[in-house]
């Protein structure tokens, strides 16, 4: 318990530290997609997140939040590996194994969401980064809104090139129907506050060990500092 508290405090303080290789990276993007051209079509929204080589990678997770659309989520396919949440609420995927969340979806004129990446460091020593991919599919799993209409590679890709300290964004949309913009990072005090809240939640939820729900939920755009042992939990089947 004492070790866990220390970890939480340490994570809380991270938000006050200047950016450096040692601190965790929290990156937010705002992704906006103009779906007017496929309005009323029925299809799928697909999110996946995966490392490149499980023998050498940095564990990380992404959260889809602030999901907004005038379309409708009508269901979901079975999730692959580590996925929590469902649209239109927050959805979280980690890269311990290839994770995928697919919602059945009736397209409206737009869909927007915030994508939050949390990784110990994108400039770390891990040699194989992680990739997030958003795909907008029709009912036959063909890509919509993309330039070539192929099944691959999807609509928006975000690749973490860990050893080069870089994040590359691939936008495959046709005519910039999709845009990816950087969302502002939370201010330091917000990080601290979030950490302190997390500390309180941790103290309460530690009483239910082993459950995924013990991981503090995180609000839209807010950082999520989990206990350090989150990365070692078992994969869901």
């Amino acid at each position, binding site marked *: 318990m004492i070790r866990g508290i220390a970890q939480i405090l340490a994570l809380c303080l991270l938000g006050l530290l200047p950016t450096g290789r040692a601190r965790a990276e929290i990156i937010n993007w705002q992704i906006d997609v103009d779906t007017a051209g496929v309005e009323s079509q029925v299809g799928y929204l697909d999110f996946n997140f995966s490392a490149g080589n499980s023998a050498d990678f940095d564990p990380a997770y992404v959260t889809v939040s602030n999901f907004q659309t005038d379309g409708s989520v009508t269901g979901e396919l079975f999730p692959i590996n580590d996925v929590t949440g469902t649209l239109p609420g927050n959805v979280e995927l980690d890269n311990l194994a290839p994770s995928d969340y697919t919602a059945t979806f009736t397209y409206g004129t737009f869909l927007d969401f915030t994508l939050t990446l949390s990784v110990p460091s994108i400039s770390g020593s891990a*040699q194989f980064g992680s990739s997030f*991919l958003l795909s907008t599919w029709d009912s036959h799993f063909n890509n919509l809104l993309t330039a070539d209409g192929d099944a691959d590679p999807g609509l928006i890709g975000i690749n973490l090139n860990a050893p080069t300290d870089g994040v590359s964004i691939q936008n495959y949309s046709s005519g910039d129907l999709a845009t990816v913009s950087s969302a502002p990072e939370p201010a330091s005090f917000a990080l601290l506050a979030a950490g302190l809240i997390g500390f309180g939640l941790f103290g309460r939820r530690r009483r239910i060990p082993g459950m995924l729900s013990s991981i503090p939920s995180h609000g839209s755009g807010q950082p999520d500092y989990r206990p350090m042992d989150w990365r070692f939990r078992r994969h869901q089947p």
Partner: protein
Amino acid sequence: MDRNSIVDADFTMLSVVARGIARMGRPALVCGVLVFLTCVPGFAVTCPAGSTQVTSTTTGGNAGSAATWGGTSILNNGDGYCLVIEGPVVDDLSTLGTSGGKGVAIFVSPTGSLSLSSGIAHALYFAGAGADPCGSGGTSSPGADATMWGIFAQGNVSLAGTQTFPVTMNSANGVTPFYIAKTEAPGNPSITVKWAQLTNLGAGAECGGIYPEFSGIAFYESWNPSSATVDIENDNFVNPYGVFWAAGAGSGSQLSLIAKNNVITGRSGGSTVVNEYHLYSADVENNTESAPAAAGYLGVFNGIQTSFTWTGNAIAGTAAYSAGGLTGIGLPANTALGSTLVYNDPAMAGASSPTSNGLDLQQSTGTNAAWLYCENCNQSFALRYLANTDTATLTNSVAITNHRAWVGQGAYFASGGLLNLQNSICIFTDETVTGAEGCVFAYGGNGPAVTSIQAKNNTLYRTVGGNTESFGFGVDESPYTMTNNLLENNLVGGFQTDFGDGTSGTDVFVTSCGGVGVCRNATFGAGVSYATMAKPANWDNGTVQHPSVLYGDVDGIDPLFLDTTRISLAAYDVQVLSGPGTPGDFFAQLGKRAGWGGTYPLSNTPIQDVVQWVKYGFTPTNALICPGGVTIGAVPCAGVPLTLSPGALPNGTSNVQYTQTLTVGGGVNCTFVNAGVLPPGLALSYTGTSNSASISGVPTAAGAYNFLLVASCANGVISRSLGIQVNAIPRQTDVTSQIGVVGSGLTFNRTTNIYKGAITITNSGSTSLSAPLQAVFTNLTFEVAMIGPTGAVPVSNSLYPGVPYITVSSIDALAPGASLTFPVQFLNPFHVAVGYVLRVLAGGF
């Protein structure tokens, strides 16, 4: 003939110069007019009315930072502000000024500088909406209350965009100009404007620019910088009044101009590039002007102190608005004007009174012009205003002209001078208009008759016409008497040749060619005549003792006239003279007549052929100066020995791609054969229309292979013994320790279960890694299969038998620090974490 009409067109330029001189004499007026600039050394600023002045800190900063302007935010783009720059300022904004707003006025002090941040496109607006840029000065000059927006530079200004991130400069109201100005105040600004589009800069407005007649880039008079450069490259000037005007470059100034690759359309006045006084140097290359809306030259240069480069510039004019290509006054002696001045005024084709000149060199001595092309011009090339002892030389030029003289007026107003014309071609296309003259029109000045012409090895041809006043050479016509003339070894087709009109003049020719001044010339074509006017006093038709030969009709020539014991006719002259006498034969000899090497294929439109040779054959890169002449394109210099390179071939490796190019230097249309044995798997290939061949393929057997390579070209044969050593493929070596490996994540498609990513390997060692390089995926997660590997490591391999691998590089070695990226795909139906250990091997299996 109307001699004066020949020079009428040039008074436009002269008047420009005269006005510039006049301005030099009224500085007080200038100071009164340009109140916003000081007339004494120092830096004074008078911002435009209605603007808000802010001053940068002495250390400068980013234009977008309020700290740069003493805490004043310039509201994103500085619209309506007068920016006074005292230190280095970088414009980190994408815009300065607002289209439709006031724009910005910028003053750069001698200690300041303005540059643009890289990686973004910039747009600058100079508007002053609603204000009259001329103020009370009317339409000819700015008044004291002028509201001028733009850039006034006494410090460096670098508006350097890139092709990807250009710079746009605009004047929203279409009247207020953009300008960079310099006055008498100290300072040596270097001005750079690259990859910029400048529009609405005051076209047609008399007070466009601080120099009131230019709306491009102008410098005011009486400026004598000790070191300054203006660099204008890759810019697009749309409807400017002019582009560059260095009116103020004084006789001692050190102002250098670089103007390259600019496109100018719709110039509304003046000339495009003008320096009135003494640039230090000028490098003007590959600029193109089209659709000028006012008469003017592409370039007017009056005195250049050190060097002048003019090449590849072109102007396409119209009947009403074109004065010509280049006027050079007092250029440095022996200025090599480069390969090309292309000047074509198509509207002049067939015009009864063309007014434009291609090249007008005045008071410019030495060999100033070479390889010039002018079509539909009044005077293609005018060399004139020579001083008594000066010589102007024109060599290797081509003129396609309609009317008037091609080369002439060797010393019209001056008292003397020598026009030296050699190895050039004139095609005179239309003589149907009365008053048309001919190819070479040389006559003496009004002073002492000491003007001379010496013309050798030229070829003159008339395509149509028959006007009795037209001629090939027009020399020494009264009252413009000449002396010391020499016409030698010229070929004149279709023309009469006029040597004075017999009414006056001494008609003295030099005696360097066998005792007379006209020798070894030949006329060609049916019905032509010579010397319809007076013959030179010592003229003889060559029938008895003089080697002067003018043949009126080749077909009817009396072989006795060919006194080969005394006439050294070149072989090509003999060919022409003995041929059927068609224009085709004539043109077939043009290149040789001009001293060019090679042959020139002809169609049934020989004039167009020649035009093509000249317009597209002469470029700075393919025109070679050969001994005795010039060669075009790939045609080699006559007598130049062929070379074969490389001298030796590199070794190959079995089962590794091998490619080597062989080149015959100086060769044309070469075929290749090899006598002997090439390594198995390699083949020799060539097109037969070039001077190169390739030996390529994948050698299959190690060993030493020797053969004789023979290149048979249109202009010669060369052979060389060569050998290729094919080495056995090296045993693979695990170089993983010398490799840095990084990879992307894997994106996947749940419907196909295919996972895709990329891997980059970097040679982190200090030695090069030889090809082939193989990426071997060991310990691959059991449930995962690699898609599309190059293969599996042979089971005989002791290290990684059966492991899938990808050949990262089959040919090229990986140098230290170099990287290679290759895609990977896995089939992963169970969606497990994909894991593997990557090994990199150098060498084959």
